[in-house]
C-alpha cells in the first residue's frame, strides 16, 4: 500500500487551480458532500499522510454497506439470503484527525474560498481519518 501511495505521490502534479468555486458550493448544497479539487502540494500530502498514519489514533468500527458485495448478491439472485450476512457489509475504522492537521485542512479550504459556504462552517467542520480495507474481523 505504501509503495503504491509513494508511486502515486511521485506522479502527483500538485494542486488544481480553482477558478469557479460556485460549482462546488452547488454540489455541497444539493447533495451534502462534494469532492474537493486537488488542494495540496506533494510535500504537504506526504506530511499529511505521515500524520494521518499516527498509530496512537483510536479507531471506532463502522459497518458500511459494500456495494460490490450487494451487486454480487443481486447478480447471483440470492440478495435476500445474503442481506444480513457479512458479505454485503464492510468494516471500516474512523478516528478523529489530529486537531492541528484539522486546523490546517480548514485553513486550506478557506483559502480556496470553500469555507465561505456557510458562515459557521469553520466552527462546525470536523475531520476524521478513515481506515478502509482492513480485515473485517478487526473491528467486530
Amino acid at each position, binding site marked *: *500500500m*505504501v509503495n503504491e*501511495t*509513494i508511486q502515486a*505521490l511521485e506522479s502527483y502534479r500538485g494542486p488544481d487551480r480553482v477558478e469557479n468555486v460556485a460549482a462546488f458550493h452547488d454540489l*455541497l*448544497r444539493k447533495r*451534502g*458532500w462534494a469532492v*474537493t479539487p486537488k488542494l495540496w*502540494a*506533494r*510535500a*504537504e500530502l*506526504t*506530511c*499529511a*499522510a*505521515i*500524520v*494521518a*498514519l*499516527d*498509530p*496512537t489514533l483510536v479507531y471506532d468500527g463502522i459497518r458500511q454497506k459494500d456495494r460490490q458485495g450487494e451487486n454480487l448478491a443481486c447478480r447471483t439472485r440470492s440478495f435476500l439470503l445474503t442481506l444480513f450476512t457479512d458479505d454485503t457489509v464492510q468494516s471500516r475504522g474512523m478516528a478523529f*484527525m*489530529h486537531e*492541528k*492537521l484539522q486546523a*490546517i*485542512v480548514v*485553513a*486550506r*479550504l478557506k483559502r480556496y474560498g470553500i469555507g465561505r*459556504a*456557510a458562515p459557521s*462552517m469553520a466552527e*462546525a*467542520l*470536523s*475531520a*476524521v*481519518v*478513515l*481506515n*478502509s*480495507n*482492513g*480485515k473485517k474481523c*478487526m473491528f467486530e
Partner: protein
Amino acid sequence: MDGAFDVLFRNIERSTDPEELLKEIIKWEGVSSHAQLFAFGAMQRLRDLGWKIPKYARDIQNEGRRLMVKELLSREYSRVSEKTLNVYVSNFNKFLRMDDEEFKKLERITITHSRGRHGGLMALSEVEIPVSLSAVAQLGERRIEMEEEEEEEEEGLDESGEGTDDDVDETSEDVVFEDGLASDGVAGEAADEADGSVAPRRSSRARAGHAGQQESVAESDSGSVDAKVHSRRPARRAVQDSFLVERPSKRIALDSSMMLNDLLHTTQWVRRMHTHMQDRANQCMMLVQALATLEALDRDPREFSPKEQEHSFGLLRGRAEVLDNLYMKGERFMVLLVCVCVV
C-alpha cells in the same frame, strides 16, 4: 533547487520577529532528528537579538514578553495547568540566558519535553514510569533500613524479657519526639512532608531518639511517662504510614536472593518500559516533525528536494510498518483524509 527545509531555515535566520521565532521554537523543540536545527536556529536568532524573558513577574516593563510566551505555549498545550506553563516559560528562559559556550554544547532543546512531562503533543504520560516504581530501589533501601531498625527494637524487647507495657512504650516513643516536632501524629506527618527528605531523617531521628530516650524516661516519673506514651502510640503509626508508600501487611525476612530477585524484576520492567517509551517517543517525534513541516509548508508552499522527499517517504514507510506490527501482519491499510462538513 533548494528544498523546503533550506528555505525554512533561511527564513528563520533572517527573521527579526520574536513572535515568529518563538513559534518556530515551540514547534520544533524536543524533536530529536536533524529537524531540531530549526529550534536551534530560532533560539540562536532570539539570543542574537538579545531577546529575553523577564525573570520575575514584577518586571512590569517587560512583562509583555512573558505573557506572549505563555500565550503561545498555551495555544500549543491547551490542557496544561498554569503552573506547568510557568515551568515551560522558565525552561524557555534557561536557553535564552545560557552562556554561548554552554549553548553550543547542547544536544537538544527541550522546553516542554523534559523528563517526559508534557501536556501537548507527546502523549508519553501513559507510559511514564510511576514515581513509586522508578524510586523502587531507593524505597527498598529505606524500607530495609527501617525494618532492620525495627527488628533491632524487637530483638531488644525480646531480650529484655516480656515486652511489658512500659518497655513497649519506651520503644514506641523514640521515633516521634526527640526534636519535639510533634506531639500528635498529624503534626509530625505534616512536618515530615514539609522537609521533603523523609526516610533518611526519620532514621537519624530514630537513632537520636533512641539515645535520648532513656534519659527522658529516667527523669520523669513513671505515671507521666505512661500518660504520654498512650497518647503517642497512634502518632508513631501515622508517621510510619506517611513514610511508606507500600507497606507489607506482614513483615517478611529479607535475604539477599529476594533482594536480587526484586532488583532483577525491576530492571527487566524498566528495560521493557524504556523500549516501549522509546518506540512511542519516536512516533511522537515523527508526528511533531511532520506537523511542523506541514505548518511551515502551509505558510510558505515549497516542494521537497529529492533528499528531503526520500527522507519523508522513509518516514511514511516507517509509519506503515508500525501500523502493520500494531494490528496484523500483512494487513492492508488505506488511509484517507476526509472532511465532513456540517452546515
